């Protein structure tokens, strides 16, 4: 390097930059972006020939219908109901088949252990505890997920989800939140932890926090089995068989709509109290519609999502199965620990329309919501008592006939499942995304409080009126 003047020192360079920055036109940023865009446009006009068709394109026609005043919302609801309906009717038979097969294995294995002279507690803990928890989770979750995730991925690949956000933005605007919250909610259908991470697409910190704190009000895939089971056992049973699955799907849609209502209500409250502020800029790209790539859909939805979520559930279900078996088989003063704990939680459970076993199941299921139903069933069927529940009719007999569930129990359980605290993975994700112990605590306890209050009101009102 040949320089005639001395090299300027770092402070001199900084000072010079400071001086030059003052001299810059305020719009220099705009000029840079303009220059980039005009370059891109010049290149594109050389390389790309676009012919504009005479009439409106297929995309434009589709957009007119999917976002129209008349059809926009009905199509959204119908699409959601269709996804649930296909999931319910499609998952019913495989679920029973898998349960039948897996419980047969439990029978054989425990018989084998007994014939080999293994102590009863080893057989019980391994096979009636850990293994049965796994079997429940796999049979309850695998079929619905293997159907639900690909269907949802198809909607995603079609480019329909941004249209949903577009249609729903006015609602979010009214409650002082961001329109892209509809997108993060859609992700929440898959997994709330994923939904919380997806909130990064929202630029404004205030609105991102609102989206993070309310994501839990979208039932995730771990909670759908609970909702679908209740829909089938309690709602569908009240209808003739021909329309039963439609009624079950309708009830799940209803629960989702209640979740949307609470999302909006809580967003509204937050943006008018602790997270006050104006709505920030809303910009949303509506990409062109694309033909879904079936191979890719099957891969991403089965491998990346279904197996991933199932594996997580399995990891949580094995210890939970062991814990519930221990609780059911360790006796104190003539009653099992399950009996003691659920007896202790009983009055609280009763006040909100549930019972002690359900609350116990929710405590055990804090790591993963997926195992709520299996835990409830294992606690009901109790110590070593073999009740084969390989059809929904038997399930209904157990819950209604033996455990005294009513329609009120089902409704309150649906509401509790929808509104209660997020699972521990989601809570941890909220902490990582917000970096604040305070907001994490609010994110965990606020939904729980809402769930208790809502279920309490519903239960008390129902008991007063009926």
């Amino acid at each position, binding site marked *: 390097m040949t320089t005639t003047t001395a090299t300027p020192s770092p402070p001199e360079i900084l000072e010079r930059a400071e001086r030059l920055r003052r001299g810059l036109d305020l719009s220099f*940023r705009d000029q840079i972006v303009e220059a980039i865009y005009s370059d891109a446009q010049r290149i594109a006009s050389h390389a790309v020939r676009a012919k504009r068709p005479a009439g409106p394109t297929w995309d434009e026609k589709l957009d007119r219908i999917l976002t129209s005043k008349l059809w926009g919302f009905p199509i959204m609801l119908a699409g959601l109901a269709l996804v649930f309906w296909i999931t319910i009717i499609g998952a019913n038979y495989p679920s029973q088949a898998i349960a039948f097969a897996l419980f047969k294995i439990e029978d054989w294995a425990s018989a084998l252990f007994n014939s080999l002279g293994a102590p009863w507690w080893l057989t019980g803990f391994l096979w009636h505890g850990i293994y049965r928890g796994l079997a429940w989770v796999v049979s309850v979750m695998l079929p619905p997920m293997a159907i639900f995730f690909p269907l949802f991925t198809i909607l995603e690949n079609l480019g329909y989800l941004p249209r949903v956000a577009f249609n729903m933005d006015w609602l979010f605007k009214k409650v002082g939140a961001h329109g892209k919250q509809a997108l993060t909610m859609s992700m929440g259908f898959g997994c709330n932890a994923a939904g919380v991470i997806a909130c990064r697409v929202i630029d404004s*910190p205030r609105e991102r926090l609102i989206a993070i704190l309310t994501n839990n009000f979208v039932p995730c895939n771990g909670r759908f089995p609970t909702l679908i089971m209740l829909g089938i056992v309690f709602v569908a049973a009240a209808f003739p068989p021909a329309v039963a699955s439609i009624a079950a799907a309708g009830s799940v849609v209803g629960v989702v709509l209640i979740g949307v209502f609470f999302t909006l209500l809580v967003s509204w409250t937050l943006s008018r109290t602790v997270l006050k502020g104006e709505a920030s800029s809303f910009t949303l790209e509506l990409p062109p519609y694309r033909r879904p790539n079936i191979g890719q859909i099957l891969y991403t939805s089965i491998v990346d999502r279904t197996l991933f979520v199932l594996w997580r559930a399995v990891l949580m279900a094995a210890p939970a199965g062991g814990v519930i078996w221990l609780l059911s088989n360790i006796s104190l003063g003539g009653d099992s620990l399950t009996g003691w704990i659920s007896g202790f939680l009983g009055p609280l459970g009763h006040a909100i329309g549930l019972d002690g076993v359900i609350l116990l199941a929710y405590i055990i299921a804090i790591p993963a919501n997926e195992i709520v139903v299996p835990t409830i069933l294992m606690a009901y069927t109790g110590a070593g008592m073999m009740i084969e529940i390989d059809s929904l009719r038997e399930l209904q007999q157990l819950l209604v006939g033996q455990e005294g569930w009513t329609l009120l129990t089902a409704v309150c359980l649906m509401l509790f499942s929808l509104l209660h605290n997020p699972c521990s993975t989601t809570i941890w994700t909220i902490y990582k995304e917000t970096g604040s112990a305070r907001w994490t605590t609010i994110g965990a306890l606020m939904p729980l409080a809402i769930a208790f209050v809502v279920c309490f009101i519903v239960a008390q009102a129902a008991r007063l009126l009926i």
Partner: protein
Amino acid sequence: MEPSLAISLAAAAALALLTLWPRRGLLARWRRARRLAERVIVEDALKHIHARELRGTLATPESLAGKLDVGVRRALQLISDIQGRGLIQSTGPGLRLSPEGRKLALRVIRAHRLLERYLVDELRMPLEAIHATADRREHTMTVEEVDALEAQLGYPQQDPHGDPIPTSAGTLETVEATALSDWPIGMPAKIVHLEDEPPEVMTLIVGAGLALGMQIEVRESDEQRLALWDGESERELARLAASNVFVSELPHPVQPPARLSSLKPGEAGRIIALRCEGLNRRRLLDLGLTPGTLVECAFPGPAGEPRAYRVRGALIALRREQGDEIEIEPFTVSVEGSQ
């Protein structure tokens, strides 16, 4: 050991830990609060003396006492304190900052104005609410944090009220502007500065719909109020508030603004300017909404809002607020075949 003794010993130990724990204990917290209170009052005093210097009427112990809401005795004590630290000059009537004191005052003002920019641009807080928050936070930031905030915001040069932001080297530009109350009737003007103190008056200004960069003309004025014209509609402003609005000359007559949000589906316009700053502006620019771009309104959402616009071949949905921030000239020729 007696259980009651054990319990009281444990309680005493817990209490001692709670009080004496380094950095998080009550004692440490109390010390920190004391130090912060001390810093706040010194910095507020320097700010006041600096503001009076700029205005040309020097601060006095009485004005300082009034500003800080303390007794004159406390003010005098404070003055001798900061004099002892070499922050104010000791000569002449009225208070003047020493170079050291000016540097410190400008550092606080810099933190305050950058915070205001942040609160408006990034957190979207209403303009009349930011002053109080910035007033509290300005005292808790280190120089490095202020510099980092400036870089994050993209080196803004003015706060949301139009006040220049001091540089990290400690230079402060002055704005040439006239109070709207002294501006001649019928002369086109551009708003260059809004005075944010007292907040009640700022609320009046915001309530009248006035904003930085707006083109206005005074149509009539009397003892009580001014009638203003922005090219589209008439606005009224109390004379009291008009002395807090500063304007400079506009070389051309006031023009009515056309906004992207006024386009109906099927209509098109060419972007003239973006009337927003910070995050919003960057976001719009990133999407290709640069001045000179042709934009067509494609279709509205089910509730009439947001609307989808066709920009450079892509569909972009914007709320009405974003459309209002984009100034356009209507484009009447058929869109077909154009870029």
